[in-house]
C-alpha cells in the first residue's frame, strides 16, 4: 500500500505541477472533504446497524445464525475461533440480504476478532480469504445499480440480475481458489525451508 500510495501521489503531483500547480491544494483538501462526508454518512449508518447488532447479540440470536452457517464457515475458514465465526456468519447474512451498511462494520469486527498468526501485524490466511471474498462482492442483488438503471430510463432495469449473479459467483469463486492456491504454495515453501534448516543442523 505504501509503495502504491507513493507512486500514484508523486506521479499525479508531477503531472499537476506542469499542468495546473494552483489546483493541487484544492484537490487534496477536496479529497479530505470527500472522506469526511463519507465518514459522517458511515457514522449515521453504523449507529443504526451496530445498535441493532447489539440487540441481536443480547438476545443470543447471533449464536443461532452462526450455527446455521457453521458448515460453510468451517469449510472456508480453517481453525477459527467462535467469536470470529459468529461475526463472519452475520457478515454473510447481511451481504446476502443486501444490507451493505451492516455488512461492513460486521466485517471489521470479524477481522478484529480472528486468531492472530505468529506475526501479530501480518494478515493470516483466514483474514486474507475473508477480505478477498468481501472485496469481490457477495451482494447478489445489486440494488443501487438497478435503481440507477431504472432512473436512466431502462426498459427492464433488473435484466442484469442473472449475469450479475453468475459474475459475482465467478469472482468470489476465483478469489477463493486464488487464496487457497497461494496459501498452499507458501505452506509448502515454509515446510521445505524448515526441512533445509533441520538438515543443516544435522550436518
Amino acid at each position, binding site marked *: *500500500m505504501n509503495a502504491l*500510495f507513493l507512486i*500514484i*501521489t508523486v506521479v*499525479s503531483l508531477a*503531472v*499537476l505541477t506542469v*499542468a495546473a500547480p494552483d*489546483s493541487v491544494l484544492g*484537490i487534496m483538501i477536496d*479529497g*479530505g472533504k*470527500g*472522506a*469526511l462526508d463519507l*465518514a459522517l454518512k*458511515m*457514522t449515521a449508518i*453504523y*449507529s443504526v446497524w*451496530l*445498535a441493532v*447488532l*447489539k*440487540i441481536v447479540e*443480547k*438476545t443470543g*440470536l447471533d449464536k443461532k445464525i452462526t450455527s446455521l452457517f457453521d458448515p460453510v464457515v468451517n469449510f472456508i475458514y480453517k481453525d477459527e475461533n467462535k467469536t470470529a465465526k459468529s461475526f463472519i456468519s452475520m457478515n454473510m447474512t447481511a451481504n446476502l440480504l443486501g444490507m451493505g451498511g451492516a455488512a461492513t462494520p460486521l*466485517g*471489521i469486527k470479524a*477481522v478484529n476478532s480472528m486468531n492472530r498468526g505468529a506475526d501479530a*501485524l*501480518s*494478515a493470516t490466511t483466514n*483474514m*486474507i480469504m475473508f*477480505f*478477498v471474498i*468481501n*472485496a*469481490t462482492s457477495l451482494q447478489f442483488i*445489486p440494488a443501487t*445499480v438497478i435503481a*440507477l*438503471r431504472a432512473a*436512466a430510463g*431502462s426498459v427492464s432495469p433488473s435484466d*442484469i440480475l442473472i*449475469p*450479475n449473479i*453468475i*459474475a*459475482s459467483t*465467478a*469472482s*468470489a469463486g*476465483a*478469489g477463493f481458489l*486464488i487464496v487457497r492456491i*497461494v496459501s498452499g504454495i507458501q505452506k509448502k515453501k515454509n515446510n521445505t525451508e524448515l526441512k533445509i534448516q533441520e538438515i543443516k543442523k544435522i550436518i
Partner: protein
Amino acid sequence: MGNFILPFLLIALFVYAAIKKIRIYDGFIEGIKDALKLVYSIFPYLAAIFIMVGLFRLSGLSAFLTKILEKPLALFGIPSELTELILLRPFSGNGSILLLEDIYAKYAADSYIARAASVVVGSSDTAFYIAAVYFAESKIIKLRYAVPAALAANFIGCVSACLLCRVL
C-alpha cells in the same frame, strides 16, 4: 412486498428482546458508541485514499492509464468504453457510480455497454477501500497477497461480466 421485510424484522427483534427482558435503549447506546469508535479508527485510512484518488483522477493520470490499458484489456473481451470504469472500480465507489451514470447517459441504459458496465459494478467491490477499512481497527499492516488476490478475482469477474452480457 420487499419494503415490509426490514421493518417487520426490526419489530420482531425488538419484541423478542423485550420478552427476554433486554434493555433496548441501553443496547442502542452501546451500539452507537461502537459505531463512533469504528469510524474514528477508519477515518485516517479513508482520508488518505480519498486524497490519493482525487490526485489520481484530476491530474489526468487515470485517463492516461486508461488509454494505455485499452488494448491489453481488449484481448480479454473488454470493450474500450469500460476501461476507465474497470481501472477506477477498485479505488472509488462514488467515482465508479459517477462513471456508470455517464455511461448510461452516453450509450443508453439498455445498450450492451451499459449492461456490461452495470454487471462490472454490481459484481465487484472497491478492493483498496475495503482493504483499508477492514484491517484498520485490528492494526494489521502486512496484508501480504490480499490486495493482488482481490484484484485478480475482480478482474475475472469483469471478464465474465463482459462475456455474459453478450449472451444473456
